[in-house]
């Protein structure tokens, strides 16, 4: 029987990062992963492959759409889908090998197997039993399946299937216009699919500020995507093509396509771990209940990432993994949930940090808001990326930044500065008085910040 200080179940961005940090802090660490490669959903069937495909498809689409406006003329512009997919697969295998290398460097043992807790300190891995002083649960989440639309990954796709298609569907139906839906929808729309969204709520990407939801929908619609909001899928006929019966505000309608992507959310993978026998509590949705120190009902067993409450984000999991590793090593880390960014990698991109305007109102805070459009930003004019805006909310009394919401090219990169500002509880004046390089898109952040209590210079 092997003895460890820490055994981590799951090698996604929460688990593998926790393992590295544990090892750095001198703890004897083992990471168990049921899949053959490390990196979890993010690396294998999530963030990384989707960003690879988003970039390839965007490059093709932009050349097609914009090249001539730059005086660039091409003959016979075309793409090969299988080569695009191969590039994506190569990126993934590069990364998974990279994590293996990091594990080796940090002397972390890793076992490819499913794990089950046998007693508070014993983990069964195949026929082997591991003994651990501490256990970190990081088994992540999986796509939610609709009962009448079981995933076959040919006609009925989960996000995993949509990242591994052999052919581009002529017409792709997307159930759920959340982050995953609009990203993968964008990929196939750019590559020639007709993409139709069916969303139950009255706006797309509902966790974001309303202004971002509306602005993004406008841009994506202009690109050719169709959105049916406040529509509920009732049943499906999969006998030939995909035919969905949908309840809309003005009655029942049907949509057909050659494939449907079901992106209605994800659920934690918390069964089959043997948690019930140990009295580890879960809520009705399967999320593991933890205290203020990430501890489950068993004080030496921790849970992080998509298994616990909060947004399902790779970077949130990683930060939680680091925090738990440090807690186990006797440190006193603090993870600030107020400054966790959230991004959608469409074109234009969406990025935000802090509170939405609705949340600010719900908290009863007195606030001021300022918006600055990229149309008035010189760099955006140079590159032709004029869509979108920066919206900043600040508390009136303390002048602290409450939320920053960006719709625009490179919003995912631009958000880093507001994240640091919010994490350090900077006043909006600090952001406004900070010198930004010219000409850059980041100047739009400065201008929006100026607009909160003073006035923007270029508007």
């Amino acid at each position, binding site marked *: 029987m092997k003895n460890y200080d820490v055994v981590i179940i799951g090698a996604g961005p929460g688990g593998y990062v926790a393992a590295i940090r544990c090892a750095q802090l001198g703890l004897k660490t083992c990471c168990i992963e049921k899949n053959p490669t490390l990196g979890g959903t993010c690396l294998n069937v999530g963030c990384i492959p989707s960003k690879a495909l988003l970039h390839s498809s965007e490059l093709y689409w932009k050349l097609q759409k914009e090249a001539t406006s730059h005086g660039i003329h091409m003959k016979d512009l075309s793409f090969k889908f299988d080569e695009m997919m191969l590039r994506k697969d190569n990126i993934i295998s590069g990364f998974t090998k990279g994590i293996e290398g990091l594990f080796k460097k940090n002397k972390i043992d890793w076992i490819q197997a499913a794990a089950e807790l046998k*007693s*508070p*300190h014993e983990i069964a891995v195949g026929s082997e039993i591991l003994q651990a*002083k*501490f256990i970190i649960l990081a088994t992540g989440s999986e796509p939610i399946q609709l009962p009448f639309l079981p995933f076959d990954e040919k006609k009925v796709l989960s996000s995993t299937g949509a990242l591994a298609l052999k052919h581009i569907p002529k017409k792709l139906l997307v159930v759920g216009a959340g982050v995953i839906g609009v990203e993968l929808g964008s990929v196939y729309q750019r590559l020639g699919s007709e993409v139709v969204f069916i969303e139950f709520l009255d706006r797309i990407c509902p966790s974001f500020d309303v202004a971002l939801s509306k602005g993004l929908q406008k841009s994506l619609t202009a690109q050719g995507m169709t959105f049916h909001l406040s529509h509920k899928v009732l049943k499906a006929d999969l006998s030939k093509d995909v035919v969905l019966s949908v309840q809309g505000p003005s009655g029942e309608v049907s949509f057909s396509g050659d494939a449907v992507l079901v992106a209605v959310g994800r659920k934690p993978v918390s069964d089959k771990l043997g948690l019930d*026998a*140990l*009295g580890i*509590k879960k809520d009705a949705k399967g999320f593991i*209940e*933890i*205290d*203020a*120190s*990430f*501890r*489950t*009902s*068993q*004080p*030496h067993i*921790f849970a992080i990432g998509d298994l616990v409450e909060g947004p399902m984000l790779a970077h949130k999991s990683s930060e939680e993994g680091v*925090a*738990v590793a440090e*807690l*186990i090593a*006797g*440190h*006193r*880390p*603090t*993870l*600030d*949930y*107020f*400054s966790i960014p959230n991004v959608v990698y469409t074109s234009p991109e969406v990025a935000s940090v802090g*509170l939405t305007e609705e949340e600010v109102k719900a*908290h*009863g*805070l007195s606030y001021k808001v300022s918006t600055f459009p990229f149309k008035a930003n010189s760099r955006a004019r140079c590159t032709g990326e004029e869509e979108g805006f920066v919206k900043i909310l600040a*508390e009136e*009394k*303390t*002048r*602290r930044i409450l939320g920053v919401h960006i719709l625009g090219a490179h919003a995912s990169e631009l958000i880093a500065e507001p994240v640091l500002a919010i994490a350090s*509880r900077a*006043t909006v*004046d600090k952001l406004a*008085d900070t010198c930004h390089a010219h000409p850059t898109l980041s100047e739009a952040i400065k201008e929006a910040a100026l607009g909160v209590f003073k006035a923007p210079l270029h508007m």
Partner: protein
Amino acid sequence: MKVEIRVPSAGESVTEATVASILKPSGTAVKADEEILELETDKLNQVVYAPSSGQLELLVKVGDVVKVGQVIGSVDTAAAGVEAKKMPVEPPKEPVKKEKEPEKKVEKSPEVPGAFPGARKKVDAALQEMQSLEAKLPEKIASPTPAPSSARQSLPSADGRQTRQKMSKLRRVISERLVQVKNETAMLTTFNEVDMSTVIAVREKEQENFQKRHGVKLGYMSFFIKASLAALQEFPDINAQIEKDEIIYNHFFNISIAVSTDKGLMVPVLKNVDQLSYAEIEKQLKTLAEKARAGTISIDDLQGGTFTITNAGQFGSLFSAPILNPPQSAILGMHNIVKRAVVIDDQIAIRPMMYLALSYDHRIVDGKTAVLFLMHIKKNLEEPTRLLLDL
């Protein structure tokens, strides 16, 4: 019917207060006279009580600045007897207890580190912390009123070896006043010692009779107050105070008594001590000290002192120089009673001795006056009969 809750008057100089804590959240059922929230002013914390029974609705939150007389909520008496609702805010999560022991033999880990309640700082906590930050305004448009302080929160430093906490308003006022005294007065201290044998003897002899008759213990404090009163009457400079270029002589004798409480030092005032008997002094002292410690003291109880007595002896202090209580001009420090060898009539005798310290503002009190004042107190304590005869 809805009964309004207003910010109560808290003495003349107080016009606004900060909501320090909410004891009963909005939506709960309260009984008449139940404590609902706590206000913090320059001078003290004041509890606001429910005006009648019913369902509470509060219009303020922690950190809000409220004016005297302002309506801060109401009690709906129609809803009297409603079940207390659950707190709307999420209660702090305690480490979850195991619901049931697993059936198998559980091996307990010998020690369980890994707990630090600050590890998950949720958005609500972040916002609350933000509220305690002062507005840092650009200089040119600086707001004339500083942002009010809010709920205090302890913030551990990165390595956990320090904790930062916002000063309470009371603590801030104490610190400002003390520094002000150091900066603006010419403070000096004179010392003497007093033989306590007679006072001790009187207390021993009469304690039982005194308690039977008055229902209160005969303490040392009443002797010190009476002795100080006699000295104040003899030396009016000590009972006076400076205001700009004028000296104000007080023709009343209000003695402030320092009382230590959980929240810091409080100095309630015993008024018109020249009109009080020993028993009345002891009774009033007891009430004031209880009110100060319970936090129910009013502004009136804290204002208008002309001289202060502080007893560091109760904690065992042998010798110390007290600091003035502005705008007063002198403060008497009592210390602990220790049996010491003293020389009396060329003989060494064992006597219960106490050091006395008188700190005074040299701008108004001359050295000679201060020394004679303290001598007067000493004599009156060593021979309390002098007090009877106005000597």
